Every structure is written in C-alpha cells, then in structure tokens.
C-alpha cells in the first residue's frame, strides 16, 4: 500500500493546535502582567512578572477556601458515583429480578431530560433540609447518576458469566462476587467514569451558583463568576484566578489522558 505523505496533515493540525493552545498561553502571560500592560493597544505579548496578581486574587476572594471546597466536592462526588453506579450496574448486568427491565428503562429516561428540570425542586429540597450554602448541597445530588450506571453496566456485561457461577458454587454471595471478582475487572470502566466525573464535577456552574451564594461555600467555577463581577476588566487578577482554578484538572488530564479519552469514546460507541 502506498504510504501517504503526512506533512499536509501536520500543517493543518499544527495550525489548529496553535488556535487551541494560544488562548491558554496568553492567559498565563496576562496573569503575570500589570493592569496597564494588560490593556495596551497593540497588545503586549510578554509577561511583566507581576507575581502579586496571584497573591491578590487569593486575598480578594476566599480562593483557597473555594479551592478546598472544589477538591472536597469533586472527590466525594466521584467516590460516590463510582460506588453507587457500580453497585447498581452490577445488579442490572448480573442479577435477575422482577422489574429489572422496566427499572432500567426508567434510568435511561432520566438521561433524556435536560438538567434544568431538576434544579428548582432540588433547590427546595436543600432549603427544606437547611442545606443551602453547604458542601452537602453540592455533593448529594452529584453522587447519583444514570449515565454512570448505564456505562458501567456495559462493562459488567462484557465479562464472562462463568466467573460468577464458579464463585457462586464456592459459596460467595453477590456482594462478594461484585467486590472481589468483578470490580477489579471493570477497572478501566471505573477509571474512565472517574475521569469524566472529575471533569464534570470540577467545572459545573449552574447548580453551585444557585445553591451556594456565600463566597465561603462556593466552588471555583462560581467563585470565578463572582470574581468577574468584582474585577470587571482587571484581567491579570481574573486570569490568575482562572489559572489556579483550571490547572489541577488540566494536570490530571495530562497524566490520565488515556482513561478520559476511553470514557469519551465510550459515550460515542453506545449512541
């Protein structure tokens, strides 16, 4: 087979990659500029090493606190999703019980509904519980997910039945089969779902914005939004905040790239 030349592909891909990268690179540069430098015409493309922007942004909003909130919420939501989704997925894939099919259809129906429909009643539930402006308010709805259940079910279905049967003959109950035998085998699925959940949970804006209005209880997304109101066009400060807020997930992605890509490719394959 003739080997196609790859240089035209590189030319186009590199140009595109530059468009993808440039806004980030520039955000980083401006986060280290003085305010007058950031407003220059024509734009100045070099940093002025104004490190105090980072100190300022930590001082002006409780950024450290919001960072911690985001880490706690994301960790709890991800752990909860992995546990609850895998339990339900295991039962859907491996156990027979009346109403299983109907129940699963109900799970799928939830996937079709835009998230905004859940918002107002969830807000009222949180109000009833006295959970407005708390981290529980951000965690509780997040640990339940129809998508994760659906995704992990596919992974459980791909494992051979003989595994369960052999363990069952040895006297293992379903919970033991789930935990000791099958869960280690669906590790790729867990990692993929974990990465997707981290990404979604870290970035989500609307629900945190609505339910936690106290800056001390905000996550970084909502914190950045409120920072915008405070600093209108002070972009060096806004960007210092953005860099701090987005760097952890970017770093995690660079390390766990394969798992996240696998998760996304999965969402496509089941369309």
């Amino acid at each position, binding site marked *: 087979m003739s080997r196609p030349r790859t240089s035209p592909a590189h030319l186009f891909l590199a140009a595109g990659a530059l468009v993808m990268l440039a806004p980030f690179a520039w955000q980083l540069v401006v986060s280290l500029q003085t305010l007058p430098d950031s407003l220059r015409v024509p734009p100045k493309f070099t940093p002025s090493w104004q490190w105090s922007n980072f100190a300022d942004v930590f001082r002006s909003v409780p950024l450290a606190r919001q960072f911690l909130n985001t880490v706690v919420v994301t960790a709890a939501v991800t752990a909860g999703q992995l546990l609850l989704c895998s339990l*339900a997925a295991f039962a859907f894939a491996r156990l027979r019980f009346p109403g299983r099919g109907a129940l699963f259809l109900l799970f799928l129906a939830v996937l079709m509904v835009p998230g905004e429909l859940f918002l107002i009643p969830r807000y009222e539930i949180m109000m009833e519980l006295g959970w407005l402006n708390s981290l529980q308010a951000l965690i509780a709805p997040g640990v339940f997910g129809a998508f994760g259940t659906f995704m992990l079910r596919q992974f459980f279905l791909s494992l051979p039945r003989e595994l369960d049967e052999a363990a069952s003959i040895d006297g293992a109950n379903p919970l033991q089969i789930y935990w000791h035998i099958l869960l280690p085998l669906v590790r790729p699925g867990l990692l993929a779902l974990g990465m997707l959940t981290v990404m979604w949970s870290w970035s989500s804006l609307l629900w945190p914005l609505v339910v936690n209005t106290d800056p001390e209880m905000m996550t970084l997304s909502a914190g950045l939004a409120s920072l915008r109101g405070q600093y209108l066009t002070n972009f060096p400060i806004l960007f210092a905040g953005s860099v701090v807020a987005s760097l952890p997930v970017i770093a995690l992605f660079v390390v766990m790239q394969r798992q996240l890509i696998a998760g996304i490719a999965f969402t496509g*394959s089941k369309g």
Partner: protein
Amino acid sequence: MHSKREWAWGYLLIAPMALGLAVFYLWPIVQTLYLSMTESGVFGGYTWVGTANFAELFTDEEMYGALGNTLLYSVLVLAGVPLSIVVAALLNVPGLRGLSLYRTLYFLPVVTMPAAVGLTWRYLFNGDFGAINHVLGTAGIDGPYWLGDPDFAIYAIAVVGIWSSVGYNAVLFLAGLQGIPRHYYEAAEIDGAGRLRQFVRITLPLLTPTTFFVVVITMINALQVFDLVYLMIDLKSPALEGSRTIVYLFYETGFVQNQRGLAAAIAVILLGLVLMLTAFQFRLQKKWVHYE
C-alpha cells in the same frame, strides 16, 4: 442460587441508586411539571394558576428572543461539526507522528472549566484592547464590540462553543473512523480511487452513525448553553438581548427574580424543545445515516 435470594440481592444493590434517582431526578421532574402550573408567592408557597405561565411566556418578547438566540447558537455550533471530522480524519492518517500530543492540545479546551474559558475569551473579544480586533485591524477590518453588541455577541459565543468542543467531537469521530474496516479502502485502491474520493465515497457514508450521534449530543448541549453566556456577557449589558439563551432566562427568572413557577414553565418548554428536536433528528436520520 435460589431465585428469591437473587431477587433480594438485586433490589438491595440497586436500592441506593434508585432511591437517589427518585429523590433528585424523578421527583423533581414531576415537581417541575407541577410548579410550571403555579405562581410562587412572596412569602413562599405556591398558588395554582393553570396554564397562565405558558400563556404569559408565549406572548413574552424575552422568551421569543431567548428561543431565537438559543436556536441560532445551536445552528452555529452544529455548523462547526465538520471541523471535528476534518481534525479526526487528519489524526487518522496512517503513519502520523505526534498523535497523542495533538490529542492533548485539542483537548485542553475540553478539560478546562467553562468559567475560565469564558473569561479568557472575554479578553480576546474585547472591542478596545482584544487580540481579535487587533488581528482584524492589521487586515484593515474595524472589528465591532463583540460582547457589547446584541448583533454580534451570540456569534462570538458560538466561536468559543465550537472551539471548546472540537477536541471532544474529534475523539468521537476518531473512534468512528477506526471502526471502518480496512477492506473497504483496499477494494477502492484496487479500483484506483484517490484519497479524496475514498474520503467522500467511503469514509463519510460509513461515518454517518457517529456523525448522527455527535449532531444529536451537540444539539442537546447547545440548547442548554448557559456557562459561556453567563461568563462572557455582563448582567446589564445591552448585548444580553442578543445572547440571552433559554437556560439563562430560566436562571434569571427563577433565581434572580425568584419567580419559580414561571421558571419551571421555561424549563418545561426547554424539555419540549429538546424532545421535539431530538425526535426530529431521529426521523431525519433515515434519510442520511447508513447502518451496516
């Protein structure tokens, strides 16, 4: 295992998730449908108003504005989908080196929180000192105040929407491309078909199931756009008239003006729109999607 015991285990293991979905998903759907027929009082509590909220929304200019803006945004973002096909096809060129580096770079916007993305592009689109107008200026074009002008804002936001999703869609397309059996191409090569002809006659038709999926999720996500608008357009900006989306209106109505009943009605209309357009896409697919 005894079947009765298996049943019990099944219900037990599903119970936590089922309970959570019931409380945080199913009940809210029912509740939102109910609330959309009520008006929220100043001191809390709801009064039944029947279809009054819908009647109000169907004569409300802001609602029609939001509907129009949302649909325009969706069309613009959908128009960006071919870009992802091109990127995926190039990434799929045999013998291409640096695939994982490219993938990482194209993915940066996907993994970055929309709030940070929105702020970055606010700066780039600034009418006075933004880089975009600077570049346009060197080409002799006097760029507008993108984010301050109701005629331009939604286009600027759509550019960012496309920019943030190219990588995501390209990954889906790449998976689709890799699923096309090699023998199709081998046969075409024997027939002497060139690369471009192969792409048009083999790749694009066999990719249509993936394309259909990407179109549907892109559309559903676009209909719910909020983050970028919220971050890029100021609350009091005149540009909001040209960029306020349905979910933005929902947020404003429900949580700034605290008219929860009316906001619930907006959410119900959004649900109707999403279901209707998705059903339409599924009908349309018979005309252009090839399943083997």
